[in-house]
């Protein structure tokens, strides 16, 4: 068993809640790996006594699943109406510029993924963004660009 397969096996078998399903198994894999590799679709199908088609149907339905290895960091900008009405689009544009991207996606060096989130849940602090799932509120285009730069700098220092 490869290292990847072992991690998938352990994540799926490590679920402690009573109700274990295709979706819960996929979420467990995503928590462990940050994405759903093809091997996980096969494994969850076998584990759940389902077809790969059934598993793919679930995986492709929920947009939180990604199917390629994650970048080192992820920045999300809230796209909800509360954030929209106080300038989320300007914040997102600024984040894209700081990341050197045209739209949602991964940077070529895979250091950063930028995506929109339908609601980060801190609407009273709009516009909200998150850096590696840590929330920052009351952002503006300037602070958002600084947050991105800071995240990438931290990584450089860490190396």
């Amino acid at each position, binding site marked *: 068993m490869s290292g990847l397969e072992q991690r998938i096996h352990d994540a799926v078998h490590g679920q402690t*809640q*009573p*109700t274990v*399903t*295709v*979706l*819960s*198994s*996929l*979420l467990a894999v995503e928590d462990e790996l940050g994405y759903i590799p093809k091997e996980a679709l096969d494994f969850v199908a076998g584990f*759940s006594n389902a077809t790969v088609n059934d598993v793919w*149907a*679930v995986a*492709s*339905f*929920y*947009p*939180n*699943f990604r199917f390629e290895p994650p970048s080192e960091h992820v920045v999300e900008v*809230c*796209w*909800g*109406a*509360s*954030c*929209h*009405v*106080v300038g989320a*689009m*300007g914040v*997102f*544009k600024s984040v*894209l510029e700081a990341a050197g991207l045209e*739209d*949602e*996606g991964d940077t070529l060096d895979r250091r950063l993924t930028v*995506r*929109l989130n*339908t*609601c*980060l*849940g*801190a*609407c*009273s*602090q*709009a516009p*909200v963004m998150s850096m590696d*799932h*840590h*929330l*920052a*509120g*009351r952002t503006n285009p300037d602070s958002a660009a600084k947050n991105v730069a800071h995240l990438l700098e931290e990584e450089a220092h860490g190396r």
Partner: protein
Amino acid sequence: MVVSFVEIGLEAGRRWQELTAGERPWIRIGTALCGEAAGAFEVTDAVESELASQGVSAKVSRVGCLGLCFAEPLLDVQLPGGHRIFYGNVDPEGVAEIVSAHVAGGTPVTAKALGYLAQNGSDAPVPDGIPDLDQHPMRIWEDRIVLRNAGNIDPMDIHQYVANGGYQALHKALIDLDREQTLDEVKASGLRGRGGAAFPTATKWSFLAGNPAPEKYVLCNCEEGDPGAFNDKNILESDPGTLVEGVIIAGYATGASKGYIFIRHGHNGPIDRCRAAVDQARELGFLGENIMGTDFSYEIEVALTGDSYVAGEESALMEAIEGKRAMPRFRPPFPAQVGLFGKPTNINNVKTLAYVPEIVSKGGEWFAGIGHDTSTGTVILCLTGPLKYTGMVEVPLGINLKDVINEAAGGVQDGKTLKFLQTGGPLGGVLGADSIDILLDFEILRAAGAIVGSGGLIAADESACIVDMTRSLISFCQYESCGKCFPCRMGMSHLLEVLERICRLEGTSEDLALMRNIGENMQAGSLCGHGQLGFNPVSSALRYFGPEFDAHITDRICPTGTCLAPRYSPAQTRR
């Protein structure tokens, strides 16, 4: 070892006494999602390092949200036996002074204090020169039932919940009342579902109670994907015990064997706090076999879903718990007949169930005396947008919406004026600024083209464009359509296409009629509220702001200039 409820209560009371009037000061920091976004974790770190470096002993707790989100990060200090004194918009650099002067020195930093909350049983004098927080505009309209403990107790410590009256309702239901009498209290309260449909809760429960099947489920819906609403997550982060107790009582009243609390994956604050509340309830014997020595046995499981707004629809929710694509089911059969895993099931929103303990404790009549007409009780509103005071308030139904916006929320900030209010989530509606002089009541708001819904109130000032806002809402609805019913799947896409055309100032004179036609088909041909109500954002916007649409279409101008700015939407869609 089985410990009696009385002993648990005494131990909880002793611990609470130690916290509030013991040897050490108690510092509480709001760390719900709103606090986190404002920097509460950094403030917590600063507090802990200042206490260590100054050699000061104090208890530090991460609490939930007091509702005053505009003042986050919010920190308060309670000296032993004293009142709580709050500091708002705390930054990590300001923590040293609070620790040295107030926590160690016993003298509040009056100039920086936001206000105080007088504590029951404290004979300490109220602090000089610091305002009473209960007189703050955001708090004077409030009547806190669900939020009575929010921001007060540590959500990870069940003893703090018990010390503040927690689980007395369950004790009353199990020991003093029978299942039917418990249901009768809920019936007498007139409680209606707070998830959006406002269906009478006791009626819904009676469908399940009347089903003799041995295995039945109660589901608590905390999917809460509504942009602009965070009250469900906030309840779980601030006082998960109230919800867990409500889910247990619902199980008792309906004869269910198991409860599920359903939360979106990734919202770790609410998930962790809810799981802790369930585990601790089990440790104290409030879950499991023969609860409180009776023949009632019950379990609760916290189940997670992936990102899907429609997973908040009750039948799609069951599909998601079963691990499938979150798509609604045909009804009949209704969930009370054939529900989760084919078993009879009852589904309620977080807020609905969180009212139940207080209703059982104080009686249904008491609850029915609050509110307006058949809209009994309170409503938990999330105030967002460019308002002076953003946050969460719990106010009696029947309050004037104008007072909520102009008084409780302090009106629009920076001297601007309100243009519209978007209410009840993306499937709700908008109200023009001159139409908000109405009472908050399920029927009145619906007649005005808006709904109470999830309790989200998003304000917009004159710089916002109604066409752009409508496009944003429909863009969300299009993205979130599960795709099962084609009138919704295709209708949303077509609506978005038309709205984008209008925003590009390329709309045609037929476009409004075309959208109405699409909307009628969506309403008639969709299985769930997503498609049935999905035209609301457009129809309510047209109702109040027809001339602004005309300006885009006929005069080819966006009066605010908003529509011309770049706009982005998620690339990945459901397949």
